[in-house]
């Protein structure tokens, strides 16, 4: 695993308006990952500015991966290069937000949507 360079953790807890820098950085990351991911194949990516549980500014990045042939999760070796690329871009551009990166398989997203629909149907049924 590579080292991630220096994040600037000395600034205020929540950075001043950094939305332009974030937009540009995330666009560059998305372009790179969709074109040729250094690890597991990426299907799509979304992100949201958040505050972490200690009150620090952060960003949650959700990466949806193409299912692999066996529909098994990808090992860390396939995901670490993606993490490293994201950290590298954040450090390069001096962003003062911690990137929390979450990974889902396409089939897992479908499963979660199905579960949510089932739960919603049960809730409606219980009300009737």
């Amino acid at each position, binding site marked *: 695993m590579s080292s991630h*360079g220096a994040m600037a*953790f*000395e600034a205020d807890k929540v950075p001043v308006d950094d939305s332009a820098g974030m937009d540009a950085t995330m666009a560059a990351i998305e372009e790179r990952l969709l074109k040729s991911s250094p690890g597991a194949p990426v299907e799509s990516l979304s992100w949201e500015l958040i505050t972490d549980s*200690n009150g620090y500014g952060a960003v949650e990045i959700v990466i949806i991966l193409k299912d692999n042939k066996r529909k098994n999760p990808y090992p860390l070796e396939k995901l670490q290069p993606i993490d490293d690329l994201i950290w590298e871009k954040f450090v390069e551009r001096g962003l003062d937000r911690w990137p929390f990166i*979450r*990974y889902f398989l396409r089939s897992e997203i479908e499963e979660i949507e199905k579960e949510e629909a089932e739960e919603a149907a049960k809730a409606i049924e219980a009300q009737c």
Partner: protein
Amino acid sequence: MLSPRSLLAVAHDLARLDPRRPRQASLRRAVSTAYYATFHLLIQTAVKSFIGFGPRPTHREISESVVRWFTHERLAEACRQFAGPVVPSKLRSVLPPLARAEPTSAELQRVARIFLELQRVRHRADYDPAVRFARQDVLKLLAQVDQAFLDWEAAASDPFRPIFLLFMLTGEVVIKNR
């Protein structure tokens, strides 16, 4: 004392339950258990370094009591100081000259980073019913925790590790107003 390795093994078991359709409860407990495995790994190292686990019952009693002095927030503060290769300037300014120039080891940085990640995910796993977990994500996190356990041992020779351990108790207060 709780065994951090046993806790981590339980986390792995939980994450692999129900191969076809994992239950959210299992994945949430896996995350939470992995967090506590790491929390106890760090705390037990600190207690062992500061107090030791002596042969008398009093030793054990003191050690078990001191374990409770550590807080989640202080551990996060310590991790923030050591998550990058260069310790932040406020901390650097209170260190002797040689240490100011020296980078922290990659192993210590990785431990600090994964702890912060885990703390956030665990917070969501325990308190946010709206969040959905997926096995892919949880297994990746657990693989990182496995690595962090190895890194923590490898970082034993890092001269910054004792400072990290001290910081776990004091937090940023020791470098503020200096």
